[in-house]
């Protein structure tokens, strides 16, 4: 049962992956990518990591929806109605990725992988939770900080009017000049 599902999911994932760069419409590319990543979530689910699998699907769906918003905002031809090739250096990229694929698969088959050690715990979610909160606390802290930094940086970068513009030249205008009203304290 597991092998069949793995095969299925694998083939669908690859198909969607290829579809991402094959189709013209940006929306279709986005949702092909979503499909591929959902399959990845599925594979993870099947490989005995239910929590991570479902969380991956959860995150990917939200991400792709947001990406779709940006896709439409920035792409010249989001709907892919006017087919044009947005590619460059196709041959080079193909060559490199083929070479990488060949070397990786070669490595996969040549390297004698060690035998499995130990058996999966009963509750994998508990295992990862315990690890993150215990031995891997440093990773958790780092991830926390990275996420915080990303939030602040992304906001700052994306804001049209910058962080300080709203506070006027001398940074002291009391009700900051924000385009949209509302917000705390106003």
């Amino acid at each position: 049962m597991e092998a069949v599902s793995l095969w299925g999911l694998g083939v669908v994932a690859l198909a969607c992956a290829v579809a991402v760069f094959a189709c013209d419409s940006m929306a279709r590319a986005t949702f092909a990518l979503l499909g591929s990543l959902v399959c990845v979530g599925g594979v993870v689910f099947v490989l005995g990591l239910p929590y991570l699998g479902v969380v991956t699907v959860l995150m990917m769906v939200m991400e792709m929806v947001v990406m779709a918003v940006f896709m439409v905002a920035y792409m010249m031809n989001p709907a892919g109605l006017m087919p044009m090739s947005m590619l460059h250096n196709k041959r080079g990229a193909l060559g490199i990725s083929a070479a990488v694929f060949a070397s990786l698969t070669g490595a996969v088959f040549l390297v004698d992988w060690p035998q499995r050690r130990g058996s999966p715990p009963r509750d994998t979610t508990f295992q990862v939770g315990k690890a993150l909160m215990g031995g891997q606390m440093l990773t958790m802290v780092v991830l926390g900080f990275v996420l915080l930094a990303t939030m602040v940086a992304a906001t700052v970068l994306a804001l049209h009017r910058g962080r300080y513009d709203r506070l006027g030249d001398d940074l002291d205008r009391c009700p900051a000049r924000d385009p949209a009203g509302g917000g705390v304290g106003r």
Partner: protein
Amino acid sequence: MTFELVLVLAAGLFSVGLFGALSQQSIVMIMMGIELMIGGVIVAAADFWHFLAPAAADGQVVIVVAVVAMAVEMAMGFAVTTALYRARQVDTTDMARELKG
């Protein structure tokens, strides 16, 4: 045998993502390519965890990190693209080559 096959799947995803990243001009498309590559990594991590070291949680931590990385990459990518777009109405890497050496 499934272990190697899943790894091949991961390699495949990684390579397709790589091809996309290298060949696409649009920043968003490149980010999609990178997302696929990270997806490959997640698959590989799960595979390693499942087939080699289920006892330890390291494989899972790698997946968590990969997922966070994907989220961060996404956020920062679009922030930069927004800033770039707002500044110069350009969204392809070819036109944003000011940081040329």
